[in-house]
C-alpha cells in the first residue's frame, strides 16, 4: 500500500515539474509577444534534423586543405600540425616537387577524425594557412570507422 502511494506520488511530482516549465515558459513567451523585455528568455525547441541552428563564425568543424591558384595543395608538408596535434591524429608524408619554388608537397595527408578533438591547434600552427576548420560540417558520424580516416583528396575537395 505504502509502495503504491510512492509510485503515484512520483508521477504527480513529475507532472507538476512539466507543468511548471510549461507555465513559466508560456509566461515569458507571452511577455515577449507583447514586446516586454525580460532578462530570462522563454525556452524553445529546434526540430533538429529538419531545422538547424546557426553556427557561430569562429566555430571549429571539419578540416579542409586550401589550394594554390594552380590547384595544387598550399600545404608544404612542414609537419607542424602533426607535431602540435595533441591527439596525434594527423599523418603526413612529404615528397619532392619539381618546382624549386615549392620543393616540398604532401604526398599523403591523413586525418583520423575519430581521434581528433577539434582543438584547432593545427590551424594555429600552420605557417602557410593551408589547413582550416571552417567547413561548417559537424555531422561526422559514420557507420564504418575506416571512413573517418580522411585523405588528401577528400580534404582538398
Amino acid at each position, binding site marked *: 500500500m505504502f509502495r503504491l502511494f510512492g509510485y503515484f506520488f512520483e508521477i504527480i511530482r513529475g507532472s507538476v515539474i512539466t507543468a511548471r516549465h510549461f507555465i513559466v515558459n508560456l509566461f515569458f513567451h507571452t511577455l515577449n509577444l507583447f514586446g516586454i523585455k525580460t532578462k530570462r528568455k522563454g525556452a524553445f525547441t529546434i526540430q533538429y534534423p529538419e531545422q538547424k541552428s546557426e553556427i557561430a563564425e569562429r566555430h571549429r568543424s571539419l578540416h579542409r586543405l586550401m589550394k594554390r591558384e594552380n590547384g595544387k595543395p598550399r600545404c608544404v608538408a612542414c609537419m607542424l600540425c602533426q*607535431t602540435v596535434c595533441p591527439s*596525434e591524429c594527423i599523418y603526413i608524408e*612529404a615528397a*619532392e616537387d619539381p618546382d624549386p619554388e615549392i620543393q616540398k608537397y604532401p604526398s599523403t595527408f*591523413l586525418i*583520423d577524425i575519430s581521434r581528433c578533438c577539434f582543438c584547432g591547434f593545427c590551424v594555429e600552427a600552420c605557417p602557410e594557412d593551408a589547413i582550416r576548420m571552417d567547413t561548417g560540417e559537424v555531422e561526422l558520424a559514420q557507420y564504418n570507422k575506416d571512413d573517418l580516416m580522411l585523405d588528401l583528396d577528400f580534404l582538398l575537395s
Partner: protein
Amino acid sequence: MVEIFINDSAIKVKEGTTVLKAAEKAGIHIPHICFHDAFPPEGSCRMCLVEIEGHPCLELACSTQVREGMKVYTETENVRDARKGVLEFILAEHPMDCPICDKAGECTLQDYYEQYGLFESDFLEEKERKDKKVDIGKGLILDRERCVLCTRCVRFLRDITKTGELGVFERGVRSEIGIFGDQYIDNNYAGNLVELCPVGAITDKDFRFKTRNWFLKKGASVCPLCSRGCQIFIEYHPGFARFKVPKRVYRISSRVTSRDQSQKEKGYWICDIGRYGYSYMDKDRAENIILKQKNRPAERGEAEAFLGEKIKKLIYRNKLQRMGVVLNTWLTNEELFLARKIFTLDLELEKVFFTELDTGEKDDLLLTADRTPNKKGAEEIGFEINQIEKQKLFDETELLIVFWSSPFGLGSITELLPELSKVRTKILFTPFKRKWNDAFDLVIPTLVSAEKGGSFTNIDGKVQHFDAVLSPPGEARAEWEWLVSLGKEIEVDFNSYLGMKFPYDVYKKMKDKIEFFR
C-alpha cells in the same frame, strides 16, 4: 697555465687557448657559426663577439688568444647589441623557409635567433633570389639562399679530405659556394658536410623530406661496418600512435666523443659507408624461429630443446668431433667469449671456423680494409682466424651450427648446397631472411648490433661498449642470449652460465678470465 676572468669568474687554461674554448671550459656558451673544433678559427660569421677590458672595440672570441689576467664579458649590453646586429645582417638574405628546410629544429641560426635575436627586421628590400637546388654530387643538394658563407664545408674538403671540391666564388654580396665546373664532390666523407653545415644549405637526398628531425630519437651505438668502430648515433623514429611509419632508422650521425687523444680530430667524422649503409637494419629481417620438421613458427623453448638434444646425443655417442661451428667477426666480444667457452673449452671441438672476412678498400682517414667490427676482439679472446677449410668442415660432419647469413666465403649458395645436404642437422643463427635459410633444419633469428648490447674491440685495440638502441623484431633475440641458454642446455658447465642476464654480466666474467679486457 694562464688565469683569466670570464664574466668575473676566474678560470685557468693553457697558454694559447682561445677565449671561446676557455669560456666553453667555464661552462659559458659563446654563440658561433663558422667556428668548428676541428678547424683553425676562420672569423667570418662575427657571431662570437665579446667585450674584453682594455680593448677599444669588441673582439672575436674564436680567434683571440688568452692573456694573463684578461677580463672577458660575454653578456654586456654592447655584446648583445652586436650579436643582434650580426644576426640581422645574416638573416637579411636568409630565405626563412624553415617549414621546408630539413635542418629546422637543429639549425644553429634558428637557435641563436631564439636566444639572442627576437627582433623585427628593419630591412624592407626584397630578398635576393639565388639557386635553391644545386646538385653538388654524392646526393648532396646545395641551397645558395640559405647559405651563410661560414665556409665550413670548403674548409672540411680542403683540410680534412684534402680533395677541395667546393670553393667560394664571386665577391661581396654575390659570393656563393659552388663546385668547379662539373667536378662533383666524390669522396667517402661527403656526408659529413650535411652535419657540418650550421644551416640547411647542404642537405642530402637520403634524408631529404623523409621526416622532421624532432620526431627522431637518438641512440648511441658503435658503427659495425668496418673495424674502426666509429661512435655513432642511430636516429630512429619511435612511431606514432595510429599511423605506421615506413621505416625505423632514418639516418646515422657522428657522435663526438673524447676518443684517444691521437684520434681526436677524426672523432668528428664518420664515412659515407657507415652513414648511408643502415638499410640492412630494416630490410629482410628474420622474425620467427623456423623449425623445418613443423610447418609453423616454433617457440623459443622448442628451439633450445632441439639444439640441446642434438648436441647431447653427440656427447653420449662420444662423437663430438662430428660437430662443426662457423662463427663470424660481427659478433660482440661477449658473444665470442661465450662461443669460445661453449664450443672450444666445454665441448672441445676442433671444427670451429670463422667466416671469410668481408674486405674492401682502405682509405687514409678512417675506413679500414677489414669491414667487420670485431676481428681484433676475436683474436684477443683466443680464436685463430684462418681461411675456412671446406674439406675439414664438411668431412663426416653430423651437426653444423652456422652464425651469419651468407655462404661464408665458400662460393655461391648453389655450390654449397650439395655439401650442406650431406650434413644431417644444420642450424643457422641469422638476423636476415635469405634464400639459403631454407637449407637449414632450424633457423634462429638474431639481432644486428643496433639492437643488442655488448662491446666491440676496434682495430686499435680499444674496447667500446654500446647499448641496444632499437627494439628487436619479432621473436629475434641476441646471440649471447641464445648462447647462454645453449650453455645451460648442454649441462657441461651449467653453473657458470647462471646469473648472465645482461651483456655486462658476461663481460665481467671475461674481465676475470682474459688479461686484455681488464
